[in-house]
C-alpha cells in the first residue's frame, strides 16, 4: 500500500488499500495543491460550477438517506465520496452522448439533467429503473444486474458507429462489476470493433462487503491492453484529473479512435446501501482515514487557492443545495403509487388477448 506521501499528497493518513500499485493520473493533490496542470479547458465559471454540483449532489445524497430512514424511499445506495468521479466524468460528455449507468450514479444523472424526483421514483418503489425518459435525458435506465449494462453500452455505441454519428457512449460500473462475464464480453467487443465507448470504472474499494483486493489480483485499468485498447488509472477523487482523462477518452472515441477503460480510484464513504451495515466488514478507522481523501474539501481548497471560491460563494452553494434537497424531498413525498394497470400497460407493445387480457381484467377488477 502506498503511504500518503508516496501517494503524492500531504495527508498524514494512509490512502485506501485499493489505491496501491500503479500511480494514478492526478492534478490536484489531497491537500488541494496542484501537482499537475490544472488547465483542463474549463473556464472559471465552469470550475465554480463544479464545486456547486459537488455540494448539491452530496447534500441530495444525504437527503435520500434521510428519506429512506423516514420510510419515504425503499433501499437507497449512496455515493458519498464518489462525487468527483461521477461529476468529473459526466461533465466531460457532450449533450448528445449517452450514459448507461448502474444504480449508484445519481450525481451523473443530475449532470445529465435527469429530474431528481423522477429518478427517485425508482428508489421510492413507484416504478422500475427507467422512470425518466432515457432517450430524452440520454441517461439509460438504472441497472441492477451487475455489469449487464456494459453490453448495452457497446450495442448503443455500435449503433452510433453504424449511423456514422459522432455520439459517444459511456458505461459506468464498479470494481465488482469487472469480475462479471458481461464486462469482459463487452470490453472485448469494444476493442474489436473500436467502438466509440468510454468504460468508466469507479473503483470505490468495495463490492458490498468485498474489498477490491478480494475482487481481483490485477489492476483494473490494465485489463484494457488485453482487449487491444488503452486503459488509464486516475485519482477518482481529483475531479480535474477525472475530467481530463474522461475528456481525452471522449475526444478519442468521437474521433473514431476507439474505446478507453478508465479506472477511477475512489472510496465509498457510506454503506453499500441503506440496508447494509458496513460495521460487519470494515473498520471505522479505515473510513476515517479515507475521509482524508474526500474529494470535496480537496477541490474546494484548490478553488479557494485560485481565488475562485470564498466563504460567501461556498455558503451560497450550500444554500442552493439545501433548497434543492428540500424541493426534491417534497417531490418525492408527493410521488404516489402508479395505477395497478401500469403493471400490464407496458409489458407488450402489442399485448396478447386470451388468458393474458383476462388476467389483466382479473387483476384490475379485484
Amino acid at each position: 500500500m502506498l503511504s500518503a506521501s508516496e501517494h503524492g499528497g500531504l495527508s498524514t493518513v494512509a490512502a485506501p488499500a485499493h489505491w496501491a500499485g500503479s500511480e494514478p493520473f492526478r492534478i490536484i493533490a489531497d491537500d488541494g495543491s496542484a501537482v499537475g496542470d490544472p488547465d483542463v479547458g474549463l473556464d472559471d465559471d465552469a470550475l465554480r460550477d463544479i464545486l456547486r454540483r459537488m455540494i448539491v449532489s452530496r447534500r441530495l445524497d444525504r437527503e435520500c438517506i434521510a428519506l429512506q430512514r423516514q420510510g419515504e424511499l425503499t433501499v437507497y445506495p449512496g455515493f458519498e465520496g464518489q462525487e468527483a468521479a461521477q461529476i468529473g466524468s459526466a461533465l466531460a460528455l457532450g449533450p448528445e452522448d449517452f450514459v448507461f449507468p448502474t444504480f449508484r450514479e445519481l450525481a451523473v444523472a443530475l449532470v445529465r439533467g435527469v429530474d431528481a424526483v423522477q429518478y427517485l421514483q425508482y428508489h421510492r418503489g413507484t416504478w422500475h429503473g427507467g422512470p425518466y425518459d432515457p432517450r430524452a435525458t440520454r441517461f439509460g435506465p438504472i441497472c441492477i444486474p451487475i455489469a449487464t449494462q456494459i453490453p448495452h453500452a457497446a450495442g448503443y455505441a455500435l449503433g452510433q458507429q453504424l449511423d456514422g454519428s459522432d455520439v459517444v457512449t459511456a458505461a459506468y460500473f464498479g470494481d465488482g462489476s469487472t469480475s462479471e462475464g458481461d464486462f469482459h464480453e463487452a470490453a472485448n467487443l469494444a476493442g474489436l470493433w473500436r467502438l466509440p465507448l468510454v468504460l468508466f470504472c469507479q473503483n470505490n474499494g468495495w463490492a458490498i462487503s468485498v474489498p477490491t483486493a478480494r475482487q481481483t489480483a490485477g489492476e483494473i485499468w490494465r485489463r484494457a491492453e488485453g482487449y487491444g485498447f488503452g486503459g488509464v488509472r486516475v485519482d477518482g477523487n481529483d475531479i480535474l484529473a477525472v475530467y481530463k482523462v474522461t475528456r481525452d477518452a471522449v475526444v478519442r472515441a468521437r474521433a473514431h479512435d476507439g474505446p478507453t477503460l478508465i479506472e477511477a480510484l475512489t472510496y465509498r464513504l457510506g454503506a453499500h446501501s441503506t440496508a447494509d451495515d458496513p460495521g460487519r466488514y470494515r473498520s471505522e478507522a479505515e473510513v476515517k482515514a479515507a475521509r482524508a481523501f474526500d474529494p470535496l474539501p480537496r477541490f474546494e481548497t484548490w478553488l479557494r487557492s485560485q481565488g475562485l471560491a470564498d466563504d460567501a460563494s461556498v455558503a451560497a452553494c450550500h444554500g442552493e443545495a439545501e433548497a434543492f434537497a428540500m424541493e426534491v424531498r417534497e417531490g418525492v413525498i408527493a410521488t404516489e403509487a402508479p395505477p395497478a394497470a401500469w403493471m400490464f400497460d407496458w409489458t407488450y407493445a402489442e399485448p396478447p388477448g386470451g388468458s393474458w387480457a383476462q388476467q389483466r381484467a382479473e387483476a384490475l377488477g379485484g
Partner: protein
Amino acid sequence: MGESAQAWTLSGALNRALNDALADDERLVLFGEDVGRSGGVFRVTDGLQEAFGERRVFDTPVGEAAIAGVAVGLAFAGRPSVIEFQFDAFSYPALEQVIDHVAKMRERTRGRVDMPITIRIPAFGGIRGKEHHGESPETHYVHTAGLKVVVPSSPLDGYRLLRAAIHDPDPVVVLEPKARYWAKETGSLAADGPGIGVGRVLREGDACTVVTYGAMVARALEAADVLAEEDLRARVVDLRSLSPLDDDLLARCARETGRVVVVHEAPRTLGMGAEIAARVMELAFDHLEAPVERVTGWDVPYPPASLEDRYLPSPDRIADAVRTTVTY
C-alpha cells in the same frame, strides 16, 4: 412476394424471410456467431452478408450474453435486430440478458424504449446431435413475461412467422426445429396470413385433438394417418405460437373433441404440456371426457444420438395416447 409456387426448405424459406426483412427495413441488422461469412451452421443466413454488407450482417465473437446485450443497446439506438444463438443450449448463457432486459426493458421504461429484437434459435432434437444440441428451451422463454415465442413447423409458415417476428415491436423468440430444416413444402412465400398468437388446425377430426408444434407436428400427422385407418379421426393443431397461446383455438378444440393430447420434445415436467393441460381444463372442463394426455420427452437430460428415438415422442406413442384418451 407474388412469386410463383416452388419447393422450399425451411432453411431456405427462413433465409428468404431474413433477406426480405433486411431489404424492407434498412435499419435492421443481423448478427451472431458464424452468421456472416459462412452463412450459418444451417445455412439460414447464407448469402445475406454478401447481399447486405458487413455493416448489416456480421459475425460476433463467441459470447452470447454480449450478443443479446448488444441487441438491447441497438434497440436504444433505434435499431431493430435479428440475433442468432447457434444452438438451443447456447442460448442459456444469454438468459440473464434476455430475462432481465430484453423482456423487461419496455416495461421498465414505461413503453419509451421498445425491444424489437428477434432471437433465432435452431432448437429441439432429432438430428442425432451431441449433448447441448438437442434441447427444447421453450419453457424458459414462455415463462418469461415480455417475450413472445413462436415455432414454425413448415417452410411456408416459417417464412410467415419469421417475418411477423421481425415486424413485431416486441421481442420474439423464434425456435427453429433443426430436424425440419431440410423438409420441403411447395408454395409461394407470403408474409400475410395467421400471425403471432394464432394456431392452426392442420387436420380435422372429432375424436381427439392432438396439440403440438415444431418437428412433432409431422409426427402427429403421421399418427393421425395411422389412427384414421382405425377410423379414429384425430384433429391436429399446430400451435405455431407458444406465447401468447391461442386460447380460443384450444378452447374450441377441447370443447368440440372433448379429448386432448399434447405432444412435445421437452421434458414433461413444466413443459408446454403442463400449461396446455391447465388451460384446457380452465377453458373446457365440462367438455373434457378424459384427462389431457402428455406425450413428451422424459424428465432426463437429452440422450445421446443412439437413444434419441427412445426419447422423442414417436408416431406410435402419439397414436397410443390418442387411443388411451378415446377409450378412457
